[in-house]
């Protein structure tokens, strides 16, 4: 079933939302590349969940509100978003920048969240463990560095970019810079408050992640009470794209367990 598309105004921001499926609500927060395309893993998840994939304020077809300056703003926006949709017991899943947003939401308010899944998540910094500098990477380097399987990188690069896609990319990169340029992809205060996360938490990482190295997995695990970590072998920064089967089965297993 194709996803339904709508525009919802939340906190004054006209927001583009994809939604498909029935079941428990699953809110997926995308990474810095945006969510202008409904991806196969979203489709598969929609066979079990009520999958909601918004494009963040400042990304894709969503507006760029004047109030948007930090990931903290983004976190409060999504808490409003949950209220707006009347969601409860929502499974919150965030990849990369989206993971950071989800973590910032969860330290503020977990009352409507059933579980938290962070995939190759940004948000904290470990001294001496450098993240990849995606702002310095060329499009070719970006594709090569995001995937472990270079055939997938080639496939991504082979997709021609039309003008609309170019505009989206420029817009998304600008918002990402605004949120994450300095300090680079983290909030120096977040690590102090991750203990506030009171819902079951799953950390998923590609063992070969070259943007946010897999060493960040154990660091998050140490800071979030009871969090479990799964590192996926032969996988880069995007397990949901590179290893969709493992990603989905792990996520489904985890949410089923938390529902019990």
């Amino acid at each position: 079933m194709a996803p339904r598309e709508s525009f919802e105004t939340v906190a004054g921001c006209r927001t583009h939302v994809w939604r498909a499926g029935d079941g428990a609500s699953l809110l997926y927060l995308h990474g810095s590349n945006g969510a202008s395309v409904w991806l196969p893993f979203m489709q598969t998840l929609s066979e079990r969940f009520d999958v909601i994939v918004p494009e963040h304020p400042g990304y894709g077809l969503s507006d760029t509100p004047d109030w948007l300056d930090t990931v903290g703003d983004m976190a409060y926006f999504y808490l409003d978003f949950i209220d707006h949709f009347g969601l409860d017991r929502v499974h919150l899943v965030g990849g990369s920048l989206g993971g950071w947003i989800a973590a910032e939401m969860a330290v503020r308010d977990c009352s409507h969240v059933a579980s938290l899944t962070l995939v190759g998540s940004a948000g904290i910094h470990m001294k001496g463990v450098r993240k990849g500098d995606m702002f310095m990477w060329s499009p070719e380097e970006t594709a090569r560095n995001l995937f472990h399987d270079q055939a997938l990188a080639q496939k991504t690069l082979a997709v021609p970019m039309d003008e609309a896609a170019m505009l989206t990319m420029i817009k998304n990169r600008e918002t990402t810079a605004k949120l994450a340029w300095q300090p680079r992809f983290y909030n120096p205060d977040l690590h102090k408050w991750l203990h506030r996360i009171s819902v079951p938490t799953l950390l998923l990482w590609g063992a070969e992640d070259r943007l946010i190295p897999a060493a960040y997995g154990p660091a998050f695990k140490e800071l979030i009470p009871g969090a479990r970590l799964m590192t996926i072998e032969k996988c880069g920064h995007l397990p949901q794209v590179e290893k969709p089967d493992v990603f989905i089965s792990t996520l489904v297993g985890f949410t089923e367990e938390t529902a019990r």
Partner: protein
Amino acid sequence: MKFYFMHLMPYADLDLDYDKKYNSAWVTLPNSYYDPEKGHKLYNRYLDELELADRLGFDGVCVNEHHQNAYGLMPIPAVTAGALARRTKQAKIAVLGRALPLLNNPLVVAEEYAMLDNITGGRLIAGFVRGIGAEYHAWGANPANSHERFHEAHDLIVQAWTQPGPSVYEGKHYHFDYVNTWPRTYQQPHPPIWIPSQGSLETIEFAAAAHHRYTYLQTFSPITALARYMAMYKEVAERNGYTATEEQVGWSVPLYVAETDEIARREAEPHIDAFLNKFLRMPREMLLPPGYTSVRSMMGVMKAKSDIGGRQTIDDVAAKGMFIYGSPATVREKLEEYHKSIGFGHLLMLLQFGTLPAELTRKNIETFAAEVMPFFREARAREPARAVAR
């Protein structure tokens, strides 16, 4: 037309084969390529060159600001300007820096410019820029806030110079309860403000605003772009209810003059080549970080694709009017033609570029002063000041 010698102070001793290992002379080129012994000599040679221009009657000397690169060794331009302040006697000193958005406290610029203005008795020209994209990588400054921070920093500095202190500044990025700069500027209400730019409507609208009327400087651009932006300034000024004078627009360009066209070409070629293909070299991601330019201009760059970083020859840049070379007669003719058709009041010349050595730089400065400058000086004495040509 007024004449200025603008220096970049490149690390001319750079091993030009660096590009076999590194993709840029900026940000990521290891500073082990820099030899302090050679650097010491270069700094002093370059300062001598600027001082020579002062003695030969140039209207001004210009220093600039770039960070973490071999292209220009003036990360802190106030140091260079300070060294020149006492050794030069008549030339204006234009600091074309300062990259305002990089600063956590822009009041430092209000202070250093005020000091220079006092020491020189009002010979300072105060440049305000955003810096090029590479600066945002080098300093970790956020390119997506660059415009906002530029405008706030500008407002704050002008407030420091023009409002009796202590005053309060309340911005989004900067907030100060005590804006009370000592010393006050020597020139009142403040030193002339110049805005160097690669060209954008937003920058021109800012510079040409009726309450600003700042001098807009077009830097290293094709002559067609120069003409377009100069005309744009004039139009914006008219829309704002006044007529722009030549004093409000300037052009910065590398220039080499020698005995004949042939000699000029032969002597300049390897050095302009190094300037274009070694010192300026950087990937697009370094030059244009996200948010640094508008979405529209970024679109243009993405579509043009190959232009940045492509190899350029002396003939490419000469054909576009981005480099002027030739005999004194040729240089006079070109400048006169451009001046007549475009009408700019300030000509900033890079009389040293890339690897151009001391003896050729000296000859260039002296030949220009002896054989090109007087021609325009005499013409200027005969003509009243003109408005910018349409």
